[in-house]
């Protein structure tokens, strides 16, 4: 097994613990843990898009009243069931985004011809990022793009296969996996607590 793929495989093993979680409190804790994993692997956290997703999904579900009526805004009913459904979906989606970020943070390698092509694409992407900064002037823009693409087709930029292999430790990943499934089990044990 390639070292680059260890995070990917552990992430896949964590996915069912998120998908089959019914308890919203446990799912919220799992979401926080997924954010922590993404942050620890060098990714950034932005509050606003997540808040918009949470509020947007909760509002969308309020349009279909469900469960206990909490209060009404004019003639618009605010129901507990709809709020829980919306926020449950939002927490699941947010946790999947950050778990996905963690899974691909070690640049997993894919097998076969497609895998080789993806490696080639990422190689060229690195070359473009390096070459673009050396292109002066950048106006006219199409002229600058032309220069960039011509330079990349020169033999000096021929594709060389490079592998990023970080020193991946297994033990922390096993702990992450156990914690996610522990939260999943707690969600099942306290199925009706607190919501």
């Amino acid at each position: 097994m390639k070292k680059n793929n260890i995070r990917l495989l552990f992430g896949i093993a964590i996915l069912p613990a998120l998908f089959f979680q019914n308890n919203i409190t446990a799912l919220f804790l799992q979401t926080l843990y997924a954010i922590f994993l993404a942050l620890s692997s060098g990714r950034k956290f932005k509050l606003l898009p997540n808040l918009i997703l949470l509020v947007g999904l909760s509002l969308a579900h309020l349009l279909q009243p469900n469960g206990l009526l909490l209060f009404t805004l004019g003639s618009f009913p605010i129901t507990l069931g709809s709020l829980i459904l919306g926020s449950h979906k939002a927490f699941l989606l947010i946790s999947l985004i950050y778990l996905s970020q963690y899974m691909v943070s070690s640049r997993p390698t894919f097998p076969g011809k497609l895998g080789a092509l993806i490696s080639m694409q990422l190689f060229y992407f690195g070359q473009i990022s390096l070459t673009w900064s050396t292109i002066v002037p950048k106006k006219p823009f199409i002229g600058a793009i032309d220069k960039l693409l011509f330079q990349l087709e020169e033999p000096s930029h021929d594709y060389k296969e490079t592998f990023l292999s970080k020193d991946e430790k297994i033990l922390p990943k096993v702990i992450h996996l156990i914690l996610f499934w522990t939260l999943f089990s707690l969600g099942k044990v306290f199925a009706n607590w607190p919501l």
Partner: protein
Amino acid sequence: MTHRTKMNVEFVALLAAFALFLSTVEYMIPKPIPFMRIGLANLPLIIGLGVLTYREYFLLALLKVIGQGLISGTLFSYIGLFSLGGTLASSTVMLLLFIVFKEKISLLGISIAGATASNVVQIELARLVLFGSAARFIAPPFLIAGLITSILLGLFANRFVTTSTWYKKHKESSL
């Protein structure tokens, strides 16, 4: 479309990398709404119509989705699903229009049709995965924003294929 028998994988990988580069450029452009997208990464797909074979074209679409998912880290999330659905829909529609209408349709028309197909599929996915029937409320602003950005992208693509010497070289070698 081109009719090469041997696939030029290096050229496809280069265009796919260019799509990734454009999506990082787009990431740096401030947007009024967090989820709004200009779709700059679709430029290689639009200009690729004239210089790629069918197989190369769909390979480019697939690489664009996987590459973006890997770079942004959203490959295994619902965003990856939306990206796959939108890109497959837009690339299929753009390719069909390019084959059927050939020189009778401009890249502006192709860009608008591709963006509309992508947005319709993404709204349907939003209905199924996220919002349920409330998706109808996000559809109008989403489609209008898509129309505006696709017009801008289509105009740029038209200008690119007429002025770029790099494109001209590949167009001539593909004939």
